[in-house]
């Protein structure tokens, strides 16, 4: 019984921290519809700023509270700046582009924090009052945990008061329901949005500051926190404060018991909960179907077959790519091989995202499953390169078919989050099932034998598979299946009315995309000679997203241009100091300059040029 109570209290304390971050995220999403990937970065900044403030203050409870409050205000100001400088310009842009921009911010903040605070984890020395314990039902329980348990409901109460009892809160709630109407009634939405963003950022900073005494400010906390916060927000229902609180309680408590009872499951537990909730309640615990807050939705320009000029350019670059091994050195050849693989990986995600209308946050899962399938084909079955390349898309495609059955029924952010959940589960399996996957050490020595040992041969193989794969995916788009898929994306109701089976079409697209990604993973496994769990980790999924969005979702050439550009950029920047900062800044600038992606901007410019021709 004692154990039960103690774990419960520990769970409630961590639930409070989870709620603080998730509340900010859900408030921001509810009003601005921005999925703020940089929310974890604001939390991290909160922890660092709190360290800077608290380590200079006397260690009394009063000064602690003051320092935490000052931190929240400082992060709120940073949030306001972020909204004014960046997000404000993107409200009319596609949702995913905002996500990409905020991901750029994540990179920038990471290196900015590294530059400013250094690489060492920073902790504050805890005065006795912080280390003390109180007695609850005869049990000694850490005092600070008790403080945290109280903070969560207190913040929830204050937020509910703010949203239901003040004019500002009323305006915000009205804006979540119909922003154009609020504007037509004379309300300046810019001020509203900036203040909402500042509030959300302040909550994140508060969470970071309050987390500091129990741990440290470090450079890894941003992504860890933002995934947890996403899960809480999605489980609770996007935009619902009460839902976020419930979800935080559920996840916090489950985790507290999970760590003790089933230590192996902790990495996946959160995502298992999310998957289970979303399958049962597709809009989260207290969420409601997403209504389009934008009233005048912009019609997507249809994807058209490439014109003669573009085809010529494509052929020319293909010829150049084929001749490359005769001119470039071994390092550049590796980069080009990776670029070819990235093209197929991105093109497969593009099929899902563009024509399929399903933005996946967990595309790396299929890549990883393909890579591991190739590894098993080599190690366990003793098969050669051909066996691996055949087995990989088969395995990834089959898995995608199974998982896709759950996924294709959802839409928007919920779909993205469910794919992320499955990717995290796949990653955790590869990470923790050490006997089979080798865990973090991966599986090594997968170099192919015979002709493919030559890096140049490997490059040509990658090029052939990637070009072949990408062309095949393109062919699919202009087949009746592709038209049906695009019709389903553009107007689900009308498509259903003419007899198209939307879930089935989407499932087929999902499986095809999964198989193609699996193939790219297998080629990568052979090119690198090894597989690791990181192939399935979130950053790798983000790589594919960045490539597709950078290139432009609504063009065929988009993923190709984007993947090559991103791979080359990354390998070029990787060698320089503060490469994340530069890359992040570049992503942000590219998003601001080319909201339609590089290929999209080029296509628009070409069309303008053509129009002025006599």
């Amino acid at each position: 019984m004692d154990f039960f109570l103690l774990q419960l209290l520990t769970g409630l304390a961590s639930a409070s921290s989870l709620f603080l971050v998730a509340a900010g995220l859900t408030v921001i999403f509810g009003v601005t519809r921005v999925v703020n990937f940089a929310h974890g970065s604001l939390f991290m900044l909160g922890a660092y700023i709190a360290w800077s403030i608290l380590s200079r203050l006397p260690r009394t409870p009063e000064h602690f509270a003051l320092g935490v409050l000052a931190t929240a205000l400082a992060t709120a100001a940073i949030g306001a700046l972020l909204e004014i400088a960046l997000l404000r310009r993107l409200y009319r842009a596609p949702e995913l582009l905002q996500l990409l921009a905020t991901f750029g911010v994540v990179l920038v903040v990471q290196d900015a924090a590294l530059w400013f605070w250094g690489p060492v984890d920073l902790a504050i020395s805890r005065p006795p009052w912080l280390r003390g314990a109180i007695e609850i039902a005869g049990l000694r329980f850490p005092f600070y945990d008790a403080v945290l348990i109280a903070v969560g409901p207190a913040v929830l109460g204050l937020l509910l008061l703010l949203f239901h009892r003040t004019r500002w809160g009323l305006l915000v709630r009205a804006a979540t329901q119909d922003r154009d109407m609020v504007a037509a009634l004379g309300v300046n939405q810019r001020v509203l949005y900036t203040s909402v963003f500042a509030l959300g950022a302040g909550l994140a900073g508060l969470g970071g500051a309050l987390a500091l005494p129990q741990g440290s400010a470090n450079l890894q906390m941003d992504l860890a926190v933002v995934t947890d916060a996403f899960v809480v927000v999605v489980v609770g229902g996007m935009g619902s404060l009460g839902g976020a609180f419930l979800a935080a309680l559920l996840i916090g408590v489950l985790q507290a018991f999970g760590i003790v009872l089933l230590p192996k499951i902790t990495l996946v537990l959160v995502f298992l909960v999310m998957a289970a909730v979303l399958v049962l309640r597709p809009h989260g615990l207290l969420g409601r179907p997403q209504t389009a807050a934008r009233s005048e939705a912009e019609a997507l320009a249809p994807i058209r077959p490439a014109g003669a000029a573009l085809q010529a350019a494509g052929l020319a670059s293909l010829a150049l790519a084929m001749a490359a091994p005769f001119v470039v050195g071994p390092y550049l050849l590796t980069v080009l091989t990776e670029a070819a693989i990235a093209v197929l990986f991105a093109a497969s995600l593009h099929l899902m995202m563009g024509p399929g209308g399903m933005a996946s946050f967990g595309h790396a899962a299929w890549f990883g499953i393909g890579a591991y399938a190739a590894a098993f084909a080599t190690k366990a079955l003793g098969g050669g390169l051909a066996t691996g390349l055949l087995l990989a898309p088969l395995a990834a495609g089959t898995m995608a078919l199974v998982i896709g059955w759950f996924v294709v029924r959802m839409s928007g952010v919920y779909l993205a989050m469910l794919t992320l959940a499955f990717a995290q589960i796949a990653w955790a399996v590869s990470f923790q099932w050490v006997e089979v996957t080798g865990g973090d050490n991966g599986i090594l020595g997968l170099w192919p034998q015979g002709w493919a040992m030559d890096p140049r041969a490997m490059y040509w193989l990658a090029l052939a598979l990637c070009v072949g794969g990408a062309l095949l995916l393109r062919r699919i788009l202009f087949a009746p299946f592709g038209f049906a898929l695009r019709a389903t994306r553009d107007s689900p109701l009308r498509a259903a009315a003419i007899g198209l089976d939307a879930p089935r079409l989407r499932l087929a697209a999902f499986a095809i995309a999964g198989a193609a990604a699996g193939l790219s993973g297998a080629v990568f496994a052979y090119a690198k000679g090894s597989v690791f769990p990181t192939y399935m980790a979130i950053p790798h999924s983000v790589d594919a997203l960045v490539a597709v969005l950078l290139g432009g979702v609504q063009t065929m050439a988009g993923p190709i241009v984007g993947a090559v550009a991103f791979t080359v950029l990354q390998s070029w920047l990787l060698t320089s100091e503060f490469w994340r900062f530069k890359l992040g800044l570049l992503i942000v600038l590219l998003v601001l300059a080319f909201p339609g992606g590089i290929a999209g901007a080029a296509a628009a410019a070409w069309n303008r040029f053509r129009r002025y021709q006599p």
Partner: protein
Amino acid sequence: MLTVENLHAGYGGAKILTGVSLTIAPGEVLVLLGRNGAGKSTTMKALIGLLRPTAGRIRLGTTDIAGTEPHRIARLGLGYVPEERRIFPDLTVAENLEIGRRPPRDGRPAWTPERLFTLFPNLGPLRDRPGNRISGGEQQMLAIGRTLMGNPSLLLLDEPSEGLAPVIVDQMQSAILALKAEGVTVLLAEQNLAFAARVADRAVILETGRIVWEGTMTALAEDHAARARHLQV
């Protein structure tokens, strides 16, 4: 009070308004008539700024408001009541009214919920009812009331009689006449000619995005040919 010159607007590639020009004098009720798709609602949206005009001028008093953001236009005194009413569904009747509240203008008495409940007696007992739990007629009254809370000097009413029971339409009529008596200028878009005839002073008729007829309601009543050509279906 409001002068529109050669207004062009549309959605994406579709041009809806191809040169709308009209003038509204202070204190008058002008009705915008025309068949479905003629551009009545589009004109309204362009005036309040929810749709950016591609060409033309909109002068409110002496300021050109074409291309200005909706909230600025609203603050200059334009009040917009959309055809779809667009009540905030999760907010109560009282909260919906609060969203529209803005400071009074030109020394006229400010609208308050209490004054609105005398203009629309049906709304009074519904104060705490959520916006999606009231009837269509009540929603229409609430939509007008919400906009009046901003104390507009010019009210844009987009088809207020649409889909309402005759008894509610009668209430709408007396409400609009009461507003007129208070000195509020009204631009009304309507398909219901009988309703328009009872409240409006003058009419303009829109056809395929431009004004094709203009005159007093009396003149319109006598001009059978114009009614047959532009309004009958």
